[in-house]
């Protein structure tokens, strides 16, 4: 749709949030119990953080929960009835960063591939994503390398930019338009000056990434043609402790397993997050395991995220440059470190 650009004065944001809260669950970055920033449902606009460090757990949990009920299995003696479980309740994801918006868009594209996963898509299509651009890059982010920030050209429903005393609100979808028209009196059409200020802010933000260089292309060439030595994978894997944290906090990781859990004499079947970094991920019933060695699992992870084969299929690399894997990795097997090692053909010592 033709982008429509509005502005909203900062004091009016609380009123807008009140309106949104009337019809939907609103999820936003808030201060957690021990001061860390987390995404959580809010009950009052005052809870919403505006100047915050991006939460360690990405917003993917609101489209792909860690334990996601998909089928109800009811038993009556020998007889069983199975029903799909849907979650299409209305949610608004508020003040989410550009990288997480791209992450959710990526997951949705994966689940839209035939056969489309209705369980995921019902939840995703019920979600309105209102993002906040990053006027200042975050310390570990490299979204400029993955085309996923600091400002976006699409994939959001509404994109907010801090212009000082007001926010610019770019509407990117019908869901976004609905969220604005819900409180139309608070918004006015943006002026040309406001739009050009946003562009200057974007340029300034991009420039503040400084000497950040992006090596995905050269890493992709090597990884796609099998030109990464086994010895290098081995060295990289020495810096992995197999915790799986990188997969759990990655906005684009969606590998899963399926488990049944008993509830009230019946069962709920859950889709649960899994990680290709765990030994048992590829363990077959016979005991054979094609990825028994850690270096094979590391190779698998980066082949999926960086290879040209997947790039051709998915249209992007499997990374949104949020930098969370840098933070969570107990070793140094994070995306920038591995991409740099593959490009150079050697691991940092």
């Amino acid at each position, binding site marked *: 749709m033709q982008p429509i650009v509005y502005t909203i004065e900062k004091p009016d944001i609380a009123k807008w949030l009140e309106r949104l809260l009337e019809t939907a669950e609103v999820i936003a970055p808030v201060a957690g119990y021990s001061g860390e920033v987390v995404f959580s449902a809010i009950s009052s606009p005052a809870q919403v953080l505006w100047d915050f460090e991006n939460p360690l757990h990405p917003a993917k949990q609101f489209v792909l929960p860690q334990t996601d009920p*998909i*089928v109800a*299995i009811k*038993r009556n003696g*020998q*007889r*069983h*009835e*199975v*029903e*799909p479980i849907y979650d299409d309740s209305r949610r608004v994801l508020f003040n989410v960063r550009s990288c997480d918006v791209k992450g959710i868009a990526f997951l949705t594209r*994966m*689940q839209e*591939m035939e*056969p*489309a*996963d*209705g*369980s995921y*898509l*019902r939840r995703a299509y019920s979600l309105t994503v209102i993002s906040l651009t990053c006027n200042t890059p975050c310390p570990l982010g490299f979204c400029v390398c993955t085309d996923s920030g600091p400002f976006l050209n699409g994939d959001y429903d509404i994109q907010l930019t801090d212009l000082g005393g007001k926010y610019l609100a770019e509407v990117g979808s019908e869901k976004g338009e609905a969220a604005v028209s819900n409180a139309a009196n608070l918004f006015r059409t943006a002026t040309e000056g406001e739009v050009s200020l946003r562009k200057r802010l974007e340029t300034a933000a991009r420039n503040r990434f400084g000497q950040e260089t992006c090596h995905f292309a050269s890493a992709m060439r090597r990884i*796609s043609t*099998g030109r990464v030595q086994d010895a290098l994978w081995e060295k990289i894997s020495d810096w992995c402790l197999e915790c799986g944290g990188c997969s759990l906090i990655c906005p684009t990781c*969606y*590998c*899963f*397993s*399926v*488990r*049944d859990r*008993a509830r009230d004499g019946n*069962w709920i*079947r859950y*889709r649960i997050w*899994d990680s*290709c970094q765990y030994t048992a*991920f*590829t*363990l*077959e*019933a*016979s005991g*054979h395991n*094609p990825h028994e060695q850690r270096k094979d699992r590391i*190779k*698998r992870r980066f*082949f*999926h995220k960086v*290879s040209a*084969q*997947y790039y051709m*299929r998915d249209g992007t690399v499997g990374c949104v440059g949020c930098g969370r894997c840098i933070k969570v990795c107990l070793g140094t097997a994070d995306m920038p470190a591995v991409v740099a090692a593959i490009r150079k053909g050697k691991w940092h010592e």
Partner: protein
Amino acid sequence: MNDVFLPHVARIVEVWDDTPDTKTFTLSLRDSKDFRFLPGQFLEVSVFGYGEAPFCIASSPTRPDTLQATVRRTGQLTDALHELGNGDEVGIRGPFGNGFDVEGARGKDLLFVGGGIGLPPLRSFIWNVLYERDHFGKVTILYGARTPTDLVYKDELKAWAKRSDVEFHVTVDRAEPGWTGNVGMVPVLFEKTALRPDSTLAYVCGPPIMIKFVVQDLFVRGFKDEAVISTLERMMQCGIGKCNHCAIGHRYVCRDGPVFNYKQIRELVE
């Protein structure tokens, strides 16, 4: 939008023991009868309360009223499945995977080479061929297992051995008292039969080590990469290329496979 994870309920209508740790289950869909599949395709079978696991369809697509799966006890889910009997219910999703190209095999000579529990997917194809026998050339079945006890479908093996329109040989790695047949790994059976590599498609299914030796032997005997067809084994969960357990490079065994010829197998990058 599909309920891609919603299983159909199926009833177990027959169970037989194949070996001390392997049973064949015959399933009938409880609520709908329209279920078409190809040999080589597989099902995700739910044992309610335990989850799902993939099993190849062991019965012929020319008899779609019931589905058979031959299951070895190897873990919690298969333990629980082995406890079930007639009238008990399971869930099935599928059929998944590409399956064998039955149409492309018409008019050709067919060589089936199975090892141990690798016979079930071939059995689906073999019965398909035997029910439509006139459409195919010479049919040769070679089968091996570790011991005579480990042979599956023992009654059917006898029936195949008696048929005049099928050449059938069986061997075991280790004989047991009462065994008077061949002893040795599957490739010893190649000496018993006249192979025609130019007109034959070879279908090989079994444990990885058996596949390795059989395939090497076939290439030595003049088979081309495209004429040697196998099924790849990977841990599979969703069956629809989404959960990523069975990925080899950017291919998914559950969607792009599990049936590949050796030309395709050599192109898989990982």
